[in-house]
């Protein structure tokens, strides 16, 4: 057994220079009303390293970095930067100390332009007048470094995709000249190519001695970019100073979850030939976004849409769900054509959608978890217009248990759930509802490794029970591993379709790239 829990003493005097931590957090404790998010976390970060934070959903990663960013005040604990103990009473103090943060949940202002967002709170000015031209120039420069010269600094942020917004918040972090940059699941909304861009930027930063704290649930990324790993579990540091490249996956997962989870996709039983077609999409089009999209999903089948962010996959889901008004084509569920642009018609016909942006599109954040889970069913559970909250709570509790959503209390506000658990609550909504067609847009975004395999198994079980499932994911292995049938989407067109076992990751990437060039 590896003794990962040993208490590191302070580094010995006269240690090698690079071993002197740039940042040190000691015994950080953070209590929320009713929850102990952090219960003594230690973290030390060396200059020029990429330090990865690993942990299950709700382990306390985001809370820890919010303490570092001055967004939360720790109940107790010390933060030492460059050998000096510092206090971070508010976010501006963190920036002044050279700690910049990219939050897990997008924190851009939709109504402002890209450049205004990047310099929000630290506008360049001379004598009170903002230096717009200078701001725009350096925004353009940062977007170029991030591999996105096509985003205009003048563009209104609200009109960018989720990935675009993520790029903007990264540009904002870069604009601060920070010594420590914290990134909370930055890759969650990015596709493979963009993640590589991000890594190039990260390497550029670390070469200048900037330390990067990197949070991700994707182990492949951590292997690729990380230097050392700290593992959190239930608000405590349970593993420290682990080499990112060589620590075995099984060991990491065991530390995170406290048990042995095998990380694999469920087996595909194969869809019987005579399974009825449940969802029939024909020549669907949304002007300026995608066209000529046709596919069928049979009962028990999982169809995956692979492609780059911005290829139009989410829009395809939203359009067939009625959230956008299609410009051509038809959508039918079990042979019945759906009215265009009507979500309630789609829901009544048995379609459910787990949207991509769970905060803005999915959850009513200040409402309790159970009401979020029953948001599309409370009227059905109610009797003659009178709510039956007891039945609602019971239904929600059942899903909370089935999905292993934590903490298990259903009366807390959805806002207080960690990112991955919010995702589970959304899935729970449609499980209570019971759909014939389930549309999943990035279902595992922000979901931890342990819960992922549970989620895959759950989706498979739903399919086996006769649900037709459509999955959109930017993680190609996920689409290939989970789906029976894969459609590759590029620039609003389906460029290829194949049974999942007949296609591999490289082929998908090739197809996507070809489509982009063409």
């Amino acid at each position, binding site marked *: 057994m590896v003794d990962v829990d040993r208490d590191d003493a302070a580094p010995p005097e006269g240690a090698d220079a690079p071993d002197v931590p740039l940042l040190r957090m000691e015994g950080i404790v953070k209590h929320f009303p*009713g*929850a102990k998010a952090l219960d003594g976390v230690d973290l030390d970060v060396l200059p020029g390293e990429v330090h990865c934070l690993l942990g299950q959903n709700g382990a306390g990663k985001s809370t820890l970095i919010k303490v570092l960013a001055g967004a939360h005040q720790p109940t107790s604990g010390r933060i030492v930067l460059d050998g000096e103990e510092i206090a971070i009473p508010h976010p501006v103090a963190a920036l002044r100390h050279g700690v910049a943060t990219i939050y897990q949940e997008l924190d851009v202002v939709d109504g402002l332009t890209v450049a205004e967002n990047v310099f929000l709170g630290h506008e360049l000015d001379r004598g009170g007048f903002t230096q717009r031209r200078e701001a725009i120039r350096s925004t353009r420069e940062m977007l170029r470094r991030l591999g996105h010269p096509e985003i205009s600094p003048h563009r209104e942020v609200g009109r960018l995709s989720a990935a675009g917004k993520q790029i903007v918040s990264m540009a904002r972090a870069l604009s601060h000249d920070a010594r420590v940059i914290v990134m909370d699941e930055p890759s969650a909304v990015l596709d493979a190519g963009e993640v590589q861009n991000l890594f190039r930027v990260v390497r550029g930063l670390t070469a200048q001695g900037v330390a990067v704290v990197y949070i991700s649930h994707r182990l492949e990324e951590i292997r690729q970019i990380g230097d050392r790993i700290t593992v959190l579990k239930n608000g405590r540091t349970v593993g420290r100073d682990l080499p990112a490249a060589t620590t075995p996956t099984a060991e990491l997962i065991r530390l995170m979850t406290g048990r042995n989870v095998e990380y694999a996709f469920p087996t595909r039983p194969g869809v019987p030939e005579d399974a009825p077609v449940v969802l029939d999409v024909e020549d669907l089009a949304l002007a300026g976004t995608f066209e000529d999209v046709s596919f069928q999903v049979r009962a028990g089948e999982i169809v995956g849409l692979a492609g780059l962010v911005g290829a139009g996959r989410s829009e395809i889901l939203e359009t067939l769900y009625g959230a956008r008004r299609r410009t051509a084509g038809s959508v039918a569920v079990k042979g019945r054509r759906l009215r265009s642009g009507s979500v309630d018609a789609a829901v009544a016909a048995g379609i459910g959608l787990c949207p991509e942006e769970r905060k803005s599109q999915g*959850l009513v954040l200040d409402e309790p978890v159970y009401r979020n889970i029953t*948001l599309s069913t409370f*009227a059905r559970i109610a009797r003659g217009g009178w709510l039956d909250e007891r039945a609602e709570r019971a239904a929600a509790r059942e899903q909370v248990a089935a999905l292993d959503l934590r903490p298990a*209390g259903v*009366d*807390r506000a959805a806002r207080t759930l960690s990112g991955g658990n919010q995702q589970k609550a959304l899935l729970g909504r449609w499980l209570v509802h019971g759909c014939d067609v389930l549309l999943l847009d990035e279902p595992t975004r922000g979901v931890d490794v342990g819960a992922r395999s549970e989620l895959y198994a759950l989706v498979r079980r739903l399919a086996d029970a006769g649900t037709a499932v459509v999955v959109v994911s930017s993680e190609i292995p996920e689409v290939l591993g989970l789906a029976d049938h894969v459609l590759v989407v590029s620039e609003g067109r389906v460029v290829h379709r194949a049974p999942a076992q007949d296609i591999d990751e490289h082929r998908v990437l090739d197809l996507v790239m070809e489509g982009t060039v063409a």
Partner: protein
Amino acid sequence: MSTQVDASPAAESRSSWLSGPAGRTVGLVVALVLLAVVGVITGGERFASLDNVMTILRLASVTGVLAIGMTFVITAGGIDLSVGSVLGLATVWASTLATQTMAEDLHWTVMVLTGLAVGTAAGLINGLIIAYGKVVAFIATLAMMIAARGLAEMISGRQTQVVQVDGFLDFVRADFIGVPVLVWMFVVVAVAGWFLFNRTTFGRRTVAVGGNAEASRLAGIKVQRHLLYVYGLSGLTAGIAGVMMLGRTTAGTSTNGLYYELEVIAAVVVGGTLLIGGRGTIVGTVIGVLIFAMLTNVFTINNLSISAQNVAKGVIIVVAVLIQQRFAARSTST
């Protein structure tokens, strides 16, 4: 494991009781009691008499009914600036010569039904323009506020229309178990509003739509239709309040309900309903209305000017909202 989250049901209910709605309500009740103490100290017998209590309640009942409808609108993420004008229009329309003649011929409830119909119609027009025309609620109801007042002036010719239908007057000016019918009407509307808000799918939709309209839409809630109903409901309460006003003043004039929307919105917000939507409380609204009515009463008893009253009301609004933000901050994050 057990160290992470204290998720036992007991702990959950304890923390949510202190920082939740009940905690805020306790704060409001304390404020109301303090105000009553001030009233007793400064006004003595004149304040503490049963008669005066009824006066306060009668004062509170008209704005109170408006405030119940407004609670739904604000919780749904909207605002209704037109309630005062619609109230005025309802009093005028329900007391025209034509309506009164018809009421004499048929039944006095014709006046009541006219008031309710006028209010509901105005509310539904607001709702149509806001939900389907996608006009910002502030603008749409501002327009209605101006137009309804204008219409009321046109119909009445700026004359005061005295109510002469005895059946109507006998009903609204009566007492029931020692309490004025007006107050009973407020009680009925408030209780019905409480059930509608807290116990029905209508109330749940209102909170969900106000909390996150897009998420509600994607969950299959008919957001536009619901907003139509919510504004219709606000119009209905304006109609009810109009009928009550007609009973209290025995006259319909186009100036009835002038500036009521401001006091109503203030009472709702002081009561703890979030102006940005997504959270509301009927109990809070009722207490908010009582606070304002009692304040007016205390000032009147002490012969203080309306101007001084308004200054005090302004201060109360700010203080109440400041206190609420403390509570709100404690119950959500940090």
